């Protein structure tokens, strides 16, 4: 241990108490940010849709991989209509 590190040790001894609230505040801030992030993740598409509609646009969602028209009750690839993959050619 050199004199710089001994100085640090000495400073530790005379250090005022670390405020207890710091860890709590940091933890709360992180939690809040996480919650905000989740909300944005969840609602951002809807917010964008509302914005697009307000500006006179038309919101069209692509098929999410499940065909509601096939009638077979099995998932289909978007636009292919064939379960398991798009049509070749």
């Amino acid at each position: 241990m050199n004199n710089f590190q001994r100085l640090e040790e000495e400073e530790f001894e005379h250090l005022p108490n670390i405020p207890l609230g710091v860890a709590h505040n940091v933890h709360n801030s992180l939690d809040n940010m996480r919650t905000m992030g989740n909300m944005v993740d969840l609602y951002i598409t809807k917010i964008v849709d509302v914005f697009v509609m307000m500006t006179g646009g038309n919101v069209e969602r692509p098929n999410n991989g499940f065909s509601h028209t096939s009638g077979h009750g099995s998932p289909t690839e978007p636009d292919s209509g064939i379960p398991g993959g798009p049509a070749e050619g």
Partner: protein
Amino acid sequence: MKLSDEELIRQYLETQNSRYFDQLYTKYATKVFSKCISLLKEEAAAQDAMQDIFLKIFLNLSKFGGKSKFSTWVYSITYNYCIDLIRKKKKVGSIFSDEIENAPDLAEEVPDSALLEMEVKKLKVVLEKIPVGDKAVLLMKYQDDMSIREISDSLGKSESAIKMKLKRAKHKAQKVYEETFKHRSL
């Protein structure tokens, strides 16, 4: 069982469990607070800084690549934050760059032993009297055992600029030491 820093980080990122947060915080809180007080010289400012620094650390935890030790990464954030805060308070562009680029070259290098052999009390006085930028690089090098490369990475300067900065900081420290203590003993 005591987990390594890397393991604590991995567990925290995976689970977001406050237990891992607390362990990391407890491990580094004293050191970060001590550095903040040492650089900012005000307890209230140090408390605020500490909160921001830990928030920054935990928000960027996933970006810690493990290239350096976690402690080095934490101290880099601490030094950068404090230096930035001082720069903003003084309303100057940088407390490093102008000095590095404009200062004349010093011929002789002060040996490490000249600093490392100072009494702790005298070293404390010397560090209080030199500019904060010089103090920061000396602390990084001799207190935190950071390499030139690690210092240059954390301050965003070239290695040669850091070598020059260290050289000047050592000169200033020795000069202050001589002015303060040498002619007092004559």
